[in-house]
């Protein structure tokens, strides 16, 4: 339900973000975002996945009124997303941003902080704090034009967090950042999420989404294929598969065993082999056969479905190859 702007802070929100049949069709008929229903409770770290052109950035831009929706409605923190006040406590780091090159890192934070309604000492304090969080205090007075891609991302994250917004949209926040920096930014995002900030996370890096997000949705061709927790989505894919994949670490194989395993289409490695099996009972048979030939077994591990497997599997199910 849409409410007035004055009481939203005091009210406990059911959803930090909610869409109902929310979609975008560009002039000329291109349906970039099919009518979408989405509900994200406050404090959730939500990851949106999808191949290039799936409509992820369009969804974020439409929620922030950068792109005008053509159908449906959406609320941000309980307010109609089309109203400027709905964005009062919202931060945003867009993908491929280009901050004004005449500004310094501090200037970027100040400019967007003021646009967000902050001023005076409160703003100064926020700038120092957020630049410190992303490790850019030292570069506060350096012009953006001298920044590397990674530094730009750090400042971008800082400006998105100025004023401690309740909802933050991050579109590829670690794009162009080195591995160490990526981990640092991830920690900053996780810390914000732990403080109760709702994070809407768009990323191609599935491992990152897996680590940070507690709920995800997969978008393809403007349609949500699935949504849920990371484990739910993995299970969804696992339950669809016809067998299990098992890694065996063992001692040297006898020629007889090796020949038998080849017949079962095993893939060999230096430490052992991997087999695709129908079910658990087949593992026992393999163990018995190995022990009969006195092959030492060091470990047996069933391979889990990771998010990347699940993502590719789900995208392929919808008939489109993933482009990560």
């Amino acid at each position: 339900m849409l409410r007035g702007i004055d009481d939203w802070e005091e009210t406990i929100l059911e959803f930090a973000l909610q869409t109902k049949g929310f979609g975008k069709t560009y002039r000329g008929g291109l349906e970039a975002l099919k009518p979408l229903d989405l509900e994200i409770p406050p404090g959730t770290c939500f990851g949106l996945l999808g191949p290039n052109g799936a409509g992820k950035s369009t969804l974020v831009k439409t929620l922030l009124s950068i792109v005008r929706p053509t159908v449906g409605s959406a609320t941000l923190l309980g307010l109609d997303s089309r109203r400027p006040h709905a964005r009062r406590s919202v931060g945003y780091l867009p993908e491929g941003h280009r901050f004004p090159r005449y500004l310094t890192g501090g200037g970027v934070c100040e400019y967007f902080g003021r646009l967000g309604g902050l001023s005076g000492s409160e703003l100064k304090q926020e700038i120092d704090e957020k630049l410190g969080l992303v490790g850019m205090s030292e570069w506060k007075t350096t012009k953006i034009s001298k920044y590397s891609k990674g530094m730009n991302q750090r400042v971008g994250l800082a400006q998105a967090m100025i004023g401690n917004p309740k909802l933050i949209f991050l579109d590829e926040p670690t794009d162009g950042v080195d591995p160490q920096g990526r981990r640092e930014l991830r920690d900053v995002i996780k810390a914000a999420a732990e403080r109760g900030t709702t994070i809407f996370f768009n990323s191609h890096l599935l491992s990152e989404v897996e680590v940070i997000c507690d709920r995800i949705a997969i978008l393809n061709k403007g349609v949500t294929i699935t949504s849920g927790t990371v484990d739910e989505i993995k299970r969804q894919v696992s339950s669809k598969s016809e067998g299990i994949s098992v890694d065996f670490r063992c001692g040297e194989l006898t020629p007889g065993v090796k020949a038998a395993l080849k017949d079962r289409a095993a893939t060999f490695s230096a430490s052992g082999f991997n087999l695709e099996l129908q079910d658990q009972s087949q593992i026992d048979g393999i163990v018995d056969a190995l022990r009969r030939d006195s092959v030492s077994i060091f470990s047996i591990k069933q391979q889990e479905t990771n998010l990347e497997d699940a993502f590719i599997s789900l995208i392929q199910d919808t008939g489109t190859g993933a482009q990560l």
Partner: protein
Amino acid sequence: MNAFLAIVADTWRQSKQQVVFIIMLIMLMIVAIGVVVISTTMEVVEFEGVNPSQTHEALHDKIAKIAPVKDHGFQNRRLPMDLRDQPDPDKADDPDNEPGEVPLITRQVKGWFILESGGDNEKVVAALNSESSLRAGENFEFRVVKRYAFIWTDGPIDFFHEYWNQAYLGAEIAASGEKLSPFDGDSQQEMQNRAEALDRRFQVEKSTSKLQRSVESVFDWSMSFFYTISMILFIAACAGYFPGLLAAGAVDVVLSKPISRFYIFVGKYLGGLLLFAIAVLLATTILYFGMGMRTGIWVSRAFTALPLLVFSAAVIFSLLALIGVLTRSTAMAMIIGYLFYVVIDTVLATAIGLYRSGVMDEVAWLKKIVETIYYVFPNFVLLKNTAVTSVMTQPYVDWQPVGTAAAWMVLSLALGFWRFRAKDY
């Protein structure tokens, strides 16, 4: 409000990076300071009266015996016909139609000369006025006056107050709708006669001294220069304001903030305009105080030119804002801005000038076209004329170009905002 001011302030930061805006500021300052530095006043003795019996040379000799004067200082105000070297064959019956004659003796004369004494000029004037040899059958009056000059000149520069008369007269004629062609001898003569009459009127009324008129003319020229230079450079500066704001990757975060697109658009527009206004206000203030201190004439009317100057910038900026929003291209906005201001505007102004001179009177369809242009298209030459003429004590304001330009500005802004509001970024 805070967010709105942030947009305005961002435009300032954006401008600080623009060499062209800095050049505009520097050039305005150079002109303002330069005009002040080269301006000065000169104390001269001016006389006025009827001299029926003496040539001016004889008068000059007599004066020189009473008070030392610079030889170059004696000047007569002569009618153009007096400047002729040869008799006019069309006026053979005219008794004054003599070659090279200066008909000073039988006419009312006015003139001035510079006293070399550098001392108490009032005493010298008192001596001149009481000298009986100068007064035999004549009615002369001497007085000390200040006249406008440049620092390197020996004498006052009459050109400026005569220019003032012409400018005032030109505006008056334009307002009346009379057609006096600059290509026609009779019209030229008529203009000259009227200028003389105007000068006499000011002498009699003593409403506007020559110094006042001269200084106002200098302001008129300076403001005209301010107008031209600031507009040309402002086009280059402001062409990038909107495309810069709307550049891919730059506009997203701005639009994601809790500020409506209306305030973003208006903030960017007013921000650019405010900078322009500050620049020209600064230059005019320097000119006002500088000239006031140098000449003792405080032309506060100089500031009345500013609203129209800023208005002209607002009109061209509205057009560039529209182009900027539509194309998001600085180069395109700049090209169209210059095409409009430099090429189209000059052609239209020339056509209107020719229309006013009456040379189109015999070509009805051409007259109709020019009349339509006058009412439909904004014209910055006419706006400039109105703006700079307003610094004169008796200004003439042509409201038609102001009205047309205002309509264009409103339309351009409305279209620009409509596009900005509806566009997906």
